[in-house]
């Protein structure tokens, strides 16, 4: 029979993940976890795919806090079906360099096995996130559209 992650496991995981309690998060990570954060890795170096428990823990404990420190993680939707978890949260953080506040939505799609996360994909509104984290508007410039009149780039 296919594995079904208990709601209580998800709730326990969420509780520690929301506050970035890395030691307790570690208890919910499979040794071979695959953790992907969508976004431009050339701008936000923590984006990309991170394989293995040690790498994911290092990502959450050290690499992301070099850029920002999350102080609020508010759920807008938490869905559980079978071994899958989908959640939508509003993440608020402060840039580590100067304390500037940033806030954007993040979606997580996770798969559990035996009470542990084996796979995660984080999807963020990456344009918004990059603008906030860089602290400036991206220069979108001119758009090379042959026929569209709906794309108006300012």
């Amino acid at each position, binding site marked *: 029979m296919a594995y079904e992650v208990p709601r209580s496991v998800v709730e326990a995981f969420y509780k520690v993940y929301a506050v970035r309690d890395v030691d307790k998060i570690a208890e919910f990570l499979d040794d071979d976890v695959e953790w992907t954060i969508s976004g431009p890795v050339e701008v936000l170096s923590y984006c990309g795919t991170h394989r293995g428990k040690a790498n994911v823990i290092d990502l959450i404990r050290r690499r992301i806090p070099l850029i920002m420190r999350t102080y609020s993680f508010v759920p807008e939707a938490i869905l559980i079906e079978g071994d899958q978890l989908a959640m939508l949260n509003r993440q608020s953080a402060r840039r580590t360099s100067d304390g500037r506040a940033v806030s954007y939505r993040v979606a997580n799609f996770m798969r559990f096995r035996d009470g542990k996360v084996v796979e995660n994909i984080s999807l963020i509104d990456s344009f918004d996130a990059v603008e906030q984290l860089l602290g400036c508007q991206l220069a*979108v410039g001119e758009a090379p559209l042959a026929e569209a009149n709906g794309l108006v780039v300012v």
Partner: protein
Amino acid sequence: MTYSVPRAVVEAFYQAYAARDIERVAPFVDDQVDWTISGPVDVLPFCGRHRGKQAVLDMMRHAVPEIFDIYNFVVDTMVIDGDRVATFNRLSARVGDGRVISYQLAHFMRFRDGKVVENLSLIDSFDAAEQVLGHSLAGEAGEDVDGELVAV
């Protein structure tokens, strides 16, 4: 008792949605639907909040095709929990000059009586904007934070 959307309804909706068959999508959209697409509205004008069935269908029928023609929409993950549905998808399209673009997006929906009453689309908007514009956005701004945040 709270409403639980049947998987068959969700699958039928996505069949029509993936095919961009607006006439078949319409019966799944509530008159008072609230449909939000996160992203830079100055680059992707269909982003933003669309209220009401007519506005949402108009967005699908006109606003999106003015930017690109979607030729493939693949649902990678579908999670259904009560009246809520979350999907993780990949969209592929052609922009006006024929270039192919492809990006990931998530839907978080709420259904009532077999119809979508609320949707939030979260897209990998930096990737989508770069592809639609046809040039890199990473070049302009940048700063170093102990070597971790590096814009090139």
